[in-house]
């Protein structure tokens, strides 16, 4: 591809996130704030998708160009006939985890056996843990509220390692976490798009990927201030102190760059991991139609 900026005429692009503006989307805001998208000839709008019940459909319909998701849900969507394709991962590992109170005696995910756990029902982890690992839990649907966790010492709920424990700590509640990816099911958090977008506008997809990765690189290793300022403008609830803590967690868990020793690399999928995920999902019966994992991702 080329860096041909077609004059002042910018290509409009819509990115839909999975929540309200927050540092977990920092790389995209960094790219936006620093003009990396513009340099690639793109005019990017970042829209909060917190309330979209499912972001896959609008992407498949072409209403949204790019969206945030996980590699497993994209595969499942493809299995349901949605013409999706994974573009690039921005978190090498999913920050989803379960959190619990220290006095709750949970050491490993196996200790969840027989417990009541508040989990998002869409999580493939849930299926994996119950069906593959044989951990029996009483599920209750996630409502994204922390009120019950804060008051009930026995309560166990799903969270983002970068978010809820920090909010809780701010209010003086201590929470311990176990990453769900420790279960052995380890999807990427990535950007996906539709087959159509990829085929008809491959250079836009490539440009978006380049600019975004540049943004992420800078967000975790350079000066994240432009992104954080923009996020704070859009969502004043994200105060500088809060965002600093989130950013620290992102770095601490090496979410963006992953573990070099295992071959992780910013913005790159690994074929072996994708294939493993495919096989795990297939075994769980979550893929309706035949899916080729190979052609489902740009790697």
């Amino acid at each position, binding site marked *: 591809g080329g860096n041909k900026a077609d004059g002042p005429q910018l290509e409009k692009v819509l990115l839909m996130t999975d929540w309200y503006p927050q540092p977990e989307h920092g790389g995209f805001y960094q790219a936006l704030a620093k003009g990396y998208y513009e340099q690639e000839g793109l005019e990017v709008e970042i829209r909060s998708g917190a309330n979209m*019940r*499912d972001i*896959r*459909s609008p992407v*498949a*319909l072409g209403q949204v160009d790019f969206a945030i998701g996980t590699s497993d849900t994209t595969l*499942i*969507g493809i299995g*349901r*006939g*949605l013409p999706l394709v994974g573009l690039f991962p921005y978190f090498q590992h999913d920050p989803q985890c379960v959190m619990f109170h220290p006095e709750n005696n949970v050491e490993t995910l196996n200790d969840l056996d027989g417990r*009541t756990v508040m*989990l*998002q*029902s*869409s999580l493939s982890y849930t299926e994996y843990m119950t069906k593959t690992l044989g951990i029996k*839990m*009483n*599920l*209750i*649907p996630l*409502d994204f*509220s922390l*009120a*019950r966790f804060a*008051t009930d010492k026995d309560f166990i709920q799903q969270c983002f390692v970068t978010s809820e424990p920090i909010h809780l700590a701010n209010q003086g509640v201590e929470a311990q976490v176990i990453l769900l990816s420790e279960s052995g099911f380890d999807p990427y958090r990535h950007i996906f798009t539709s087959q159509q977008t990829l085929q008809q506008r491959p250079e836009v997809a490539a440009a978006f990927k380049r600019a975004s990765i540049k943004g992420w690189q800078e967000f975790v290793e350079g000066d994240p201030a432009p992104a954080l300022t923009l996020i704070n403008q859009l969502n004043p609830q994200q105060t500088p102190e809060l965002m600093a803590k989130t950013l620290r967690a992102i770095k601490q868990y090496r979410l963006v760059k992953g573990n070099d020793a295992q071959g992780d690399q910013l913005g790159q999928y690994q074929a072996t991991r994708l294939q493993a995920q495919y096989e795990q999902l297939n075994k769980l019966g*979550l893929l309706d139609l035949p899916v080729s994992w190979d052609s489902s991702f740009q790697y």
Partner: protein
Amino acid sequence: MNATVSRIFPPAIVGVSLIAIWYLVIYLFDIPIFQLPAPHDIIEAGSQEQSTLISGALQTTLACLIGFFTSLLGGVLISVLLAYSSWAYKGFYPYILLLKMMPVIVLAPIIILWFGQGLASITVITFLICFFPIVANTTMGLCSTDKNLVDVFRVYNSSARDEMLKLRIPYAMPYFLTGLKVAAALTPIGALYGDTVAGMGSGSDAGLGFVVVVFSSQLKIPALYAAAFTACFIGFLFVSLVNILHWRLLHKWHDSYAQSN
């Protein structure tokens, strides 16, 4: 026979037209199945997920039943109290309104704190959603009593209790039944919403609300619609119940049936 035909015919015609439009929209705008599945997709998915739907429906029906009848009872009791005393009315009505307007996301933690996760909390949420239409309508009905008829009771030295039981309540019936109809239509929504906020998510305890969320998040869209229609079916049962009650209580004397005489 003829009466039955005239009851069945119009909704059937409209139903068939709606389904035709549905297909037309799908084919004309080329709407993919995950956006709006066609009726036959929904039926197919429904029969595939039959067992999940049935166990969910049973659980939800239970919540609906308890929620509906407690809101009926509670709504009527509160209305009677409000109509008894204008002091109670002025004092409590604003707070009942407040309760009605409180987002469930705020109330849910308190409800669960008191009633625990599960059926009890779901029925409380169903109750909260259903009872206000009953209260508003019944209160209005109880306060609208024909003054001339009140005079009759006053003259005969009626106790406040008799005035309520034998005058105001029968007079308020048409209002009450209208409120009940609104509540009946809200019942499945209440139970489904309760499911997602306070329900159990696994096994035979999972209500339709949970099923809906799961189908939706797993992108099983035709099955999602099947679940939604199952919920509607439960709602129809309740509305029909109210309609039967309506007919039984009013057809002999009320003008809403006078035309059919």
